[in-house]
């Protein structure tokens, strides 16, 4: 368990030293969402009706974009070879790195999401549901993405392949995330969709590290 937190601390320190580069994901998230009003027009009613879906799709893409580097940097400089030797199952290594990654990339997305809800003219009373749905759903995005990142680590153009592998797996998260928002917009109870979203995240928490660990072993051969 010690080694687990040491890896989390290491990755957080590296992210902090790299400075703005870990905030590129959230900048991407904001820009992509703000492109939509230019495309569909500034009509608040139209924006509000598509807003939740667009914010969720943008969150999916932003997560995917940043996950590309999850194992790649450590693979390229040889750190991954040694990380494998650090007295803990590789699945725990994956979990630690994914946690650090979630903290540095998904958390900023969640924090920025009310701003985007404002851009998309969503009613203020659904902001809380948006934040909660992202908080419950993004762990699943990071964990599933970690499997994709582990499968494509060390490949040239791995990022494009990774999106092909991972985006279909993101569909359930998208459905329940937007579902929760839809319920909230209609003034209904969003908790059943949020519960299902949480179930997906828990499921991914159990299975994804094992899958990613197997994929990493393969990549290091």
């Amino acid at each position, binding site marked *: 368990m010690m080694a687990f937190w040491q890896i989390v601390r290491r990755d957080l320190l590296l992210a902090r030293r790299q400075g703005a*580069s870990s905030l590129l994901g959230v900048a991407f998230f904001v820009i992509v969402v703000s492109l939509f009003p230019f495309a569909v027009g500034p009509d608040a009613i139209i924006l509000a009706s598509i807003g939740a879906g667009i914010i969720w799709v943008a969150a999916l893409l932003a997560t995917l974009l940043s996950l590309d580097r999850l194992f790649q940097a450590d693979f390229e400089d040889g750190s991954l070879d040694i990380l494998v030797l650090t007295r803990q199952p590789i699945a725990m290594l994956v979990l630690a790195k994914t946690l650090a990654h979630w903290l540095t990339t998904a958390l900023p997305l969640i924090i920025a999401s009310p701003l985007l809800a404002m851009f998309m003219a969503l009613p203020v009373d659904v902001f809380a549901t948006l934040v909660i749905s992202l908080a419950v759903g993004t762990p699943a995005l990071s964990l599933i993405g970690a499997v994709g990142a582990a499968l494509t680590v060390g490949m040239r153009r791995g990022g494009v392949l990774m999106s092909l592998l991972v985006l279909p797996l993101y569909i359930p998260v998208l459905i329940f995330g937007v579902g929760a928002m839809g319920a909230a917009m209609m003034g209904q109870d969003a908790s059943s969709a949020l519960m299902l979203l949480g179930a997906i995240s828990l499921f991914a928490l159990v299975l994804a590290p094992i899958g990613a660990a197997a994929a990493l072993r393969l990549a290091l051969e």
Partner: protein
Amino acid sequence: MMAMSRLHQYANPMRFARLSKSLLPWVGALTILLLGIGLYWGLVASPADYQQKDSVRIMYIHVPAAWMTLFVYVNMAIASAVGLIWRHPLADIAAKSCAPIGAGFTLIALVTGALWGQPMWGTWWEWGDARLVSVLVMFFLYLGYMALWQAYDEPTKASRAAAILALVGVVNVPIIHFSVEWWNTLHQTASVLKIGGPSIDASMLWPLLIMALGFTAYFVVLLLWRMRAEILARRIHVLMMQKASA
């Protein structure tokens, strides 16, 4: 021999350091004076607008901040051009130092715009206001510029890449503004009250101008500080390289 050329390179920045040191107290005092007068005039002495009532007081920071967004960007682009053409290290340093200040003013313009928009339009954000939307685009340009600087390790290479981006940006800014306005007329929503308003009374113009001057003086102070910090960073960079190979 290497040290000689380095010395030569830093002769200029050293003169700059002396100049900035003697300049700073004056500009600093001017900043405090102007912002003090501007705040008093804007918040207390100026009348409330007959239409917007007291909410018009947000204008005294929103509008100067929006001006500064453009002004700082133009400065950054000029410095970039000088750095690119004459390979002047101080110009590169100035361009780099502009970006966070400009981004700060942009952030102020955006947030105050939202806080002004809520009582005026009943919404925090209104895509119908072309100027506000353009400021948002400027914010993205600043972020991209700063991210590009971060992405390079070597300052000389970073400065050239960033300068190219700044110049491409400055050519694009009018086009962006024009296209946003055109897009707006396409989707003309019912009577959007434009922030600022077309004509302005002298009792409001004066505090506005004084605040704008205060912001400019603040910009100069910060620019001088940031440039000095950047010069130090480059000396540290050189010394660390020497230390590693000593």
